């Protein structure tokens, strides 16, 4: 026991002296969480302004003044639009191309007359007033801005009809997310789970195999095995040390979330959730062990680890739900353990993004866990460098 404790402490100290280990495994997940919550906090809440270049080719008269009222109501302090007026549509479109405007709204000459006649004389021969909305193709934000402007104009049409038609049948629209089934959905909590799993990915695909392979390549193992320490004893201590780094990383993320971000969802502290965290750590560590035996060279391992990191992270549905992927790539996501591990965590806080029984979610990660351990122990002598 004393031998174990002393060796374990030595390994821990060695790890903590290395800036890389601490930064990647313990601090980086928190940094990424801060980045994501600050970037996408406004993103998901739709808290953004749209720059509209307005080209009025006439002064509004008669019922055409309705447009003026609407644009005032939805701009400046009152709404999402920031309006800049231009005399000429070419000048406004030039500003759109230079990303100085998100969208251009052109109100042609004769608009007021058309609006007035359409309202006063139903189905007049004059026809509807036609406005032009210019947007920059391929620029997502410009396309969203275009949709906002179009919806505002649709709202104007509906409002005009409502005022004229006493029997107007009004519809109310409600967003009904099936993933949270009526519970409140917090992107902060959603990303927190992703960050927790990401920290296990880092510990497993980087720290775990790299430490083993580096020790083998540098001959540290041989030196250790010349002492009474057995390979199994060395590996058990090493595994426990790596798991501790993972647990520490979780603790730091929890501390940041609880004390600084103000996320105090009690479900995050339930025994089931903690159990899933430990299971996730075990699965990911086993994959790290397998990588150490399947990759022979340290330099190759750096590349393999990077690929594994991005595959597990992006295709495992940590940042986007896997059902967002086209089928050509979705089948890969169904083979990855992270797809199911993140889903388990989400289920325990009331979210469902993957249609499967909770118990069924264990299957793929268990196959990875058992398969990785078996492969590792078959090649145990090689990775320990004493075959």
């Amino acid at each position, binding site marked *: 026991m004393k031998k174990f404790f002393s060796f374990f402490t030595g390994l821990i100290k060695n790890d903590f002296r290395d800036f890389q280990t601490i930064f990647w495994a313990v601090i980086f997940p928190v940094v990424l969480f801060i980045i994501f919550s600050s970037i996408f906090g406004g993103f*998901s809440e739709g808290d953004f302004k749209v720059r509209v270049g307005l080209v009025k080719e006439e002064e509004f008269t008669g019922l055409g003044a309705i447009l003026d009222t609407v644009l005032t109501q939805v701009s400046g302090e009152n709404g999402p639009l920031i309006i800049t007026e231009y005399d000429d549509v070419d000048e406004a479109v030039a500003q759109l191309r230079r990303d100085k405007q998100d969208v251009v709204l052109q109100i042609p000459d004769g608009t007021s007359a058309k609006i007035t006649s359409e309202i006063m004389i139903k189905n007049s021969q004059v026809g509807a007033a036609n406005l032009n909305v210019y947007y920059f193709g391929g620029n997502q934000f410009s396309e969203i801005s275009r949709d906002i402007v179009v919806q505002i104009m649709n709202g104007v049409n509906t409002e005009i009809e409502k005022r004229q038609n006493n029997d107007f049948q009004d519809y109310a629209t409600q*967003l009904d997310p099936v993933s949270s089934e009526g519970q409140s959905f917090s992107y902060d909590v959603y990303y927190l789970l992703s960050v927790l799993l990401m920290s296990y990915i880092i510990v497993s695909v980087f720290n775990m195999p790299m430490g083993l392979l580096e020790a083998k390549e540098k001959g540290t193992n041989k030196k250790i095995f010349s002492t009474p320490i057995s390979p199994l004893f060395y590996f058990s201590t090493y595994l426990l040390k790596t798991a501790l780094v993972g647990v520490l990383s979780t603790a730091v993320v929890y501390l940041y979330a609880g004390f600084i971000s103000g996320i105090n969802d009690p479900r995050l502290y339930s025994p089931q959730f903690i159990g899933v965290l430990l299971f996730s750590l075990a699965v990911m560590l086993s994959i790290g062990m397998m990588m150490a035996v399947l990759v022979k060279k340290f*330099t190759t391992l750096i590349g393999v680890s990077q690929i594994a990191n991005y595959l597990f992270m992006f295709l495992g549905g940590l940042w*986007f739900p896997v059902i967002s992927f086209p089928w050509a790539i979705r089948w890969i996501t169904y083979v990855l353990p992270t797809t199911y591990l993140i889903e388990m965590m989400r289920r325990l806080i009331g979210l469902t993004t993957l249609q499967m029984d909770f118990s069924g979610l264990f299957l793929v990660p268990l196959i990875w866990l058992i398969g990785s351990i078996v492969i590792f122990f078959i090649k145990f002598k090689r990775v320990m460098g004493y075959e």
Partner: protein
Amino acid sequence: MSKSKQFKTIFKAFAIESLRNKLEVFFTIFFPLIFLVIFGALYGGNTFDDTPDMRIGVYLTEYSAELESALKENLPYYVNVYDDLDSMNKAVKDGDITAGVAISEKKISILYVEGDMQKNSEMSMMGNIVENVVEKSVNNFTDVIEVTEIPEGIDGKVASDFDYLLSGIISISMLSAGMFSVINLFGRYKKTGVLSRISVTPINPSTFLLSSTLVRLLMSYISVFIVILVSFVMFNAQLEFQWILFIIVVLTSTIAMMGYGILLLLIFKKPESAETAGSILMTFMMFISGIFFPENMLPEAMKIVAYFFPLKYTGLLIRYTTGMADISLGTFILINVIFAVGGIGLVALTSKKFLSTT
């Protein structure tokens, strides 16, 4: 040995060494490809905007042939009509359709799976579109105001979302090739003692510098062209390049990224730490420089921070050379000159320092 012969020999040695170095080949060539495949698949097959390949389900509690036909004709999505709510919900949950629209008397419910950053606002937008079509059909009225949507582009060419993404991935490939190769080059060579051995030979430091950076530049070009080739073959990219300007941008941007890598190496001393810092900065830059998400959606503070990182400008230059951004020629030249002068200056100063102090 003449200078040109010396240059040729060192250049050849560096080229062979670089190609043999799996890590350098990985970061230069394969790393950007991973991003291309992951995000290309996401953008290529998944559209939450109003492009027609978005598939939605509709369930009408009281069936109306007129309403069904109005929805099919006027909604900018593929519309599948369901006979019962449960099968539509299942289709949403299974990902067969992006959203399900349940229309009952005076109520429209939009069912969708949460978890995508942009989805809330997009679904809200979809709700407005559906509501408008339903109200128009049920109340049988015509619009007083009609809106014509006119896509704009540079020189009449309208880019797609994927083209935008591709310009970002090309920028990442230059960042990765320039920054990591220099960290790898000077860091590894210093650590393994190659630099100290070279400093005692008659090799001119400028020849050493020129040949080593030229190899990295060539690797950057290879990386960029592989990314372009794969994006055309796998994802049917439609970018049209102004090749001469593009080649200039690849040159100056890679040099600038090399300078950036040098800066990190000066700050962090150990190549491993500089590599870690580089990876973190790269992740950070990717999210704030308008590569994967529109810059305009970022909080104001993040937009300001983005001005201090080169990836924003590289992305802009690439979009300019592919007809997706309109900047003045003066701005284009200025950014390129700053990139080239800054990058060369940093690489030259530092390599001298590395060669003289070893």
